[in-house]
């Protein structure tokens, strides 16, 4: 009896010890809660303009699908317009028109901005109404393609080749969400690094001529870089068009169209009238005509008007020439070739 009881006790003790040991081994596998890292990343502090960084890493299969959709005119209501129509890549992502021609012959209300370097923008379209590229596509689909996402989804689903490719790239196959995603991933690949100005910022002082360097200095001295700053040389904030003078009154002609009210159309706030997203100046020498209304046919004219209405400055022809010279150095390369 005594012997049996001892045996049971030692058995129970062994079980308990083994359990605890086993539990300890298991518990060791569990990480303790991570200590929150409070450090902040330090940014480059020296220059208001920054070199263009590499774009985001995207899934090549998805980006390829986006590229196919980008060039597909059959997605528009009358099969006449694709994204490439208004954003030809060999023309720096703009069509050179003051107002692009959409499906059914409808003109866009505002000038078409470039499709390049959008990953570096803080918001999208002229009024900055869209926070993501996926959301931004709603505007051209509705206004330029004169169609709906449902229609586009049906067309893609009806295309066996595209459907198969979508099924391979996305578990859900072609849906509105995946179609938008593919387009967004493709557009994220459209960046233009390798400008002479980037080389200059990266330490190659000879990448710019003396006059181009003077143009950059003047660009900063005049305060242009207060708004046109960062890697995208703009596209980072909102600003009223006509800070020092009434641009629309000086432009003359009919009163501003409703689309020209800018951010007001999104917020309804009277102080947001004529407030626009500051455009990026990357590749600006290749994206004429300028402004939201495409009213400035040359870079010289755009610089002169900007200085007058935004800064209250009347620039001399020499000053304009220096700034334009600097702006030309912002033209980058696309997939290894100059834009």
């Amino acid at each position: 009896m005594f012997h049996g009881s001892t045996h049971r006790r030692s058995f129970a003790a062994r079980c308990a010890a083994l359990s605890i040991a086993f539990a300890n081994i298991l518990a060791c596998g569990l990480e303790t809660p991570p200590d929150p890292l409070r450090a902040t990343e330090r940014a480059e502090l020296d220059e208001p303009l920054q070199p263009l960084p590499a774009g985001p890493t995207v899934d090549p299969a998805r980006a390829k699908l986006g590229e196919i959709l980008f060039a597909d005119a059959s997605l528009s209501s009358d099969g006449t317009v694709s994204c490439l129509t208004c954003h030809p890549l060999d023309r720096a992502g703009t069509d050179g028109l003051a107002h692009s021609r959409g499906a059914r012959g409808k003109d866009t209300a505002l000038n078409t901005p470039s499709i390049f370097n959008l990953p570096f923008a803080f918001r999208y379209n002229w009024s900055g109404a869209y926070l993501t590229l996926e959301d931004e596509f709603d505007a051209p689909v509705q206004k330029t393609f004169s169609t709906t996402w449902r229609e586009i989804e049906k067309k893609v689903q009806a295309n066996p080749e595209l459907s198969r490719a979508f099924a391979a790239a996305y578990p859900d196959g072609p849906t509105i969400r995946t179609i938008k995603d593919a387009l967004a991933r493709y557009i994220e690949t459209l960046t233009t690094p390798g400008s002479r100005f980037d080389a200059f910022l990266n330490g190659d002082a000879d990448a710019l001529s003396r006059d181009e360097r003077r143009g950059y200095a003047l660009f900063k001295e005049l305060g242009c870089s207060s708004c046109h700053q960062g890697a995208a040389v703009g596209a980072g904030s909102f600003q009223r068009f006509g800070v020092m003078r009434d641009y629309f009154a000086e432009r003359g002609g009919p009163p501003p169209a409703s689309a020209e009210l800018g951010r007001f159309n999104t917020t309804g706030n009277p102080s947001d009238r004529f407030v626009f997203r500051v455009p990026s100046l990357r590749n600006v020498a290749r994206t004429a005509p300028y402004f939201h209304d495409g009213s400035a046919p040359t870079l010289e004219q755009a610089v002169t008007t900007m200085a007058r209405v935004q800064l209250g400055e009347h620039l001399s022809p020499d000053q304009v020439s220096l700034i334009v010279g600097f702006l030309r150095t912002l033209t980058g390369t696309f997939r290894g070739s100059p834009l």
Partner: protein
Amino acid sequence: MSPRTAVTLLAVILALVGGVALERHSSARLDHEREVLRRLQELYRADTALDMSVLELRAGVLKHFDPLVHNVKVLRRAAVLQRRSADDGADWQEAEIGRLVADLNSKEQLVEAFKTDLSLLRISSLHFPTVAAVVARYNGENATGLEALRTSLARYSVAPSKEFTETIARDVERMQAAAAPVDPVAAEARRSMLGHARNILERRMRIDDLARDIRQSSAHFRILALEDLHSHRQSRALVVVTAARTALAALCILAAVALSELLKRERTSATPGTLPAIRR
């Protein structure tokens, strides 16, 4: 196999299945809490970095908005993910995350206003002295008033106050009401100068208020509160997982021992000659 043995075996299997299910469930809970906490920490980091960039911009040591743009995007993304990771049916959690998202949206509006105002303040601070010098060249009889405005604005830029704002605004209006210079260059310079003066008056104090509001945004405190809450929930989940794994380990050992005992008994009952020996 005797019925008693079968029942024992069934009980052991059921207990093990139950133990495994409990361990799986509690592990999933722990993983979820870890993920929520990781995202909250990412939010906290982006929020802190955003505040830091605002202060650096205000101080003039940072000259571009890229860190703000980056961190606002991170905050937006993290807030969306946070919303998705709310427990199904946990209304309080959804409501809390909803409040956090609303706070972050408000903070983004403040950041946008800050960027816009800061750009304009910089432009006007750059241009006011230059155009004031042009005006001074043409300004004969009102040189004292102009000099007073230049001095006031220079002092105001360093130490702004509401009373000071009102005084300078009155000076600006008085200059505006005076007859315009005949010379078009002088008239244009005066127009620009007064525009820049108004810009500075309107924005100098507001920019500090905006920077302060951004720093004191409730988003920051809400993230911290959620982080504390989820740290606590993660610790609790960790205790439950440890307990579940300990119980499972104990069950495994007991099951192994019970099975070996059963097998021994089965073998003993199947060998007739050995029973008396055991009894002895």
